[in-house]
């Protein structure tokens, strides 16, 4: 069984619809550590050693967050800057994360059609996530194809519930098999 760490970052979780349901769907799964960053560090004072210990204790890291302005929320960026230390996460001797896997689980306001060449956002999600992907590849980790919920702004409760269920199945599959087939499910 793969141990999964969900790094959840939403500055206004209380106002979110999609992410509340997504979080609820995976929060209490066995083998999953749900880590609510904005609740843990409301003043951005990330505890680096604690975060590194958490990473060492898990095999798969999920970055769950809304895709604000084509990027991660500021606290997650702060987390990346502080926790992924040179000599620990990368560089010579920086092998703490080598071999682990990363999954981005994001929600976007825009619909899927907007994320393509010639579309409203001009790039695909994969292209827009390139900086995040490269960040973790540099740490020797495997970056999985992202889990994306598009069109969060105009979604009905039923639709959201479907996505939450899909999210739960994905996480479960990654946990139980940690295999290519689970990755294929994405």
């Amino acid at each position, binding site marked *: 069984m793969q141990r999964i760490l969900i790094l959840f970052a939403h500055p206004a979780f209380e106002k979110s619809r999609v992410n509340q349901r997504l979080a609820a769907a995976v929060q209490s799964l066995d083998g999953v550590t749900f880590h609510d960053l904005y609740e843990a560090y*409301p003043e951005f004072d990330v505890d680096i050693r604690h975060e590194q210990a958490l990473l060492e204790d898990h095999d798969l890291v999920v970055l769950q967050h809304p895709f604000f302005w084509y990027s991660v929320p500021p606290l997650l960026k702060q987390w990346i800057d502080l926790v992924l230390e040179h000599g620990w996460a990368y560089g010579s001797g920086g092998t703490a994360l080598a071999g682990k896997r990363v999954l981005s689980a994001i929600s976007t306001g825009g619909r899927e059609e907007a994320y393509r060449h010639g579309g409203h956002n001009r790039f695909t999600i994969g292209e827009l996530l390139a900086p995040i992907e490269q960040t973790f590849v540099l740490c020797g980790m495997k970056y999985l194809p992202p889990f994306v919920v598009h069109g969060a702004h*105009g979604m009905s409760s039923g639709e959201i519930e479907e996505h939450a269920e899909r999210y739960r199945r994905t996480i479960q599959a990654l946990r139980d098999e940690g295999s290519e087939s689970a990755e294929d499910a994405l």
Partner: protein
Amino acid sequence: MHGAGFFYQALVYLTAAVVSVPIAKRLGLGSILGYLLAGVAIGPFALGLVGEEGQDVLHFAEFGVVLMLFLIGLELEPSRVWRLRGPILGLGGLQVGVSTAVLAAIALVVGLDWRTALAVGVILALSSTAIVLQTLNEKNLLATHGGQSSFAVLLFQDIAVIPILALLPLLAVSGIGAHGDADAEHADTWVAGLPGWAETLVVLAAVLFIILAGRFLLQPAFRAIARTGLRELFTAAALLLVIATAMLMTKVGVSPALGTFLAGVVLARSEYRHELESNVDPFKGLLLGLFFISIGASIDFGLVGAAPGRILGLMAALIVSKFLVLLVLGRIFKMSLDQNILFAFSLAQGGEFAFVLLSFAVRYNVVGETLAGTLIAVTALTMAATPVLMLLNEKLLQPRVGTRESGEREPDEMDEQSRVIIAGFGSFGAIVGRLLRAKGVPATVLDLDSDRVDLLRKLGFEVFYGDASRSDLLHAAGAGEAKLLILAIDSVEKSLEMVETAKKYFPHLTILARAQSRDEAYELLEAGVEHVFRDKLDSSLKLGVEALRLLGFRGHQAHRAAQTFRRHDEHAVRELAAMRHDQKLYLGAARQRIEDLEELLQGDLADPGEMWDAGWDPDSLRQEYGGRTREERDDS
């Protein structure tokens, strides 16, 4: 003469100082030159307001030099003196040795007896502690490499006076020359008639006594005096300390300046250091001024007028030969060119020790009376010329030399001044101090509670006893060089007093003040303090945030609410401070402010999406891209 009562003399000297020093300063000549010119003006060869008694005043005013050495000692911790031991012994020893040889050789060439020549050489090899240190201090050059080296050499010279006094009688030209009065003066000390080794033992015992007394006796004594809270008592104690030390050293036949320097060094680590400094400093300034005036008044222009060419020639010979020796030594000790020139110009004059030593030499028949008179005039004139030479160096030479060393490059050599002064080290100030220290920012701490000062020093903090509302104490604590003044004391009256003092004397200081209530904040803001911090604001907001979280609010949401509240409230305080005195306006504005805040808070409670941080979840965006408003969604 002139019915010279004490008040008459005081009137003459003080008037001369008050009139001429500002003029000299205005002309960019520095205060020392001003004092010297004042002395010349009131001396027997110009206005003739003071005559023979000038000599007595000089003796009295020499005490200014003693006070100055005490203050310098206070600035120098023992470890720093120890670090200077190389320059003191090496550079100082060489300077005295080589200069003596060169000057004696010149004296031999002009036909003096070799013993007289040697005496003249060693006497003129010494430089003027008073002029040099005061000039360097005034120009803020004491901490530079050249300044430090000059200081080291002067310190060695002070020590060297003792063996020179012992050496002079041996150089007597006619064996029977020892005059009665010289013996009489020597008989005044406790070491008279003792063999050399016993004399040394007595001196060592006296030095040891000063060190031990400074360590174990003075500390509790000062603490007891501080507890009385009487400022003048502290001044009295400080002066008593210096005078007693000076007398003890005189009694064992050592230069009193050296003794008080030692006492200063012993007390350099004491928490009362800054208080002592600020108490002694005005006396030092006055007496040094008096000293310089007396030098000016004692220059015998009759002698100069009789043979101006001869005097000028001697002056030039003295300055040039000392200058060249210093330049060569500086080169050997690897000084950069600009520092080397500064060093050489600083020490190229004769010194005040020459006056004492020359009269001593006359008594022992080592030097003739006429020659001594000439040399005293030459010495005084070279001393007077030093500020001029330094000025020429600064204005004409240094700009050409290029690399100018800033005074801050070697902060370790001289007591570096902290960039932050914290007044009050109670629970509030202590946190500030600890935070600064954790980031390696040294702070000078002043506190008025002598028990607390004592305790904190035992815990290893750099805390000094003193009332920071006094400008002199602020000055001693380094307010001239500091960047920040942090007021962390309990009493707002005291804080306001300090703000006034700081604004008046140290306008460059940025003041950060603590206020214990809104009213205190108003008062401080009104006094012109920009950075006012209310004691309870942050802790009560923190508590509020925690309360919100315990009630189920998200941590970051609560934090953002507190941030907004804080910004709004700080803004309100500043706005209301301006109209506080207009009761009607104030009440109106205050009510409006409270209403604003309430509205803001209620709005936030009613609709968490709208008031704050709309960027995270804007309804308008939902509407545009989602096609539905929140109301519809909430219904679904």
